[in-house]
């Protein structure tokens, strides 16, 4: 099962990942991080399909994705 980790203090709250996620499982927190931004959170991790669209679209490399099983570090997207 894919695991999506969003690094709270790297996030600038741009919401691009929220829009990108086909599963609509990312949403913005109601809290702010140390920079004062509302940050993105994965709210329903189990529904994640590991499509990486959130990470691909994040301008701040705030998203990290893990899976169990084979994976390729260099993927041609």
């Amino acid at each position, binding site marked *: 099962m894919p695991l999506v980790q969003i690094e709270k203090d790297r996030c600038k709250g741009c919401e691009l990942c929220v829009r990108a996620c086909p599963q609509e499982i990312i949403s913005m927190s109601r809290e*702010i991080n140390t920079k004062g931004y509302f940050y993105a959170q994965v709210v329903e991790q189990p529904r994640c399909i590991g499509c990486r669209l959130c990470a691909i679209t994040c301008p701040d490399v705030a998203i990290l994705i893990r899976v169990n099983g084979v994976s390729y570090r260099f993927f041609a997207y």
Partner: protein
Amino acid sequence: MQIEVKFAGFGGQGILSAGKFLAEAGLHEGKEVVWIPSYGPEMRGGTAYCTVVVSDHAIGSPVINNPAHLIAMNRPSLEKFAPTVKPKGIIIVNCSLIPITSNRTDVTEVLVPCNQVAIELGNPKGANMVALGAYAACSKVVALDVLEAIVRHEFEKKPAFIDENIAALRRGAEIAVEKVESLR
């Protein structure tokens, strides 16, 4: 009488415009005023600050190493500038983002949760106005209603912003007054 205040935080927090409003208000009250940004818009991110000097007489050096007052909107600003504030000065601390205090005993330190308040007011970008309101109430450098007039004037073309910013100013002022009284 001459008062120097430093607004400090990071780029994007509205530091420079809050300072500008204060300066405009000072001008409006017939004072001599100087507003100096630390730097222009060429760089974003990092620490941004501006200095406002409000005085009854002509202002000499615009270089202020030791301001009378400080408004610290994030942690690095507080750490950097708190030690430079003149004794008996005022420090406004945005405790939404700053988990520490200055540890100074010779100044009046007022903790205002600017971001929280702004979020509560439904105007998350208004943290700078909350801070400005709080500062004006503590320092009495300019009158709150003059500040409100300036806000009205500046947002003439975007009337939607007027009310929410005035609300932020007022709420900031209220909190500050409460806090200051509790300090007594």
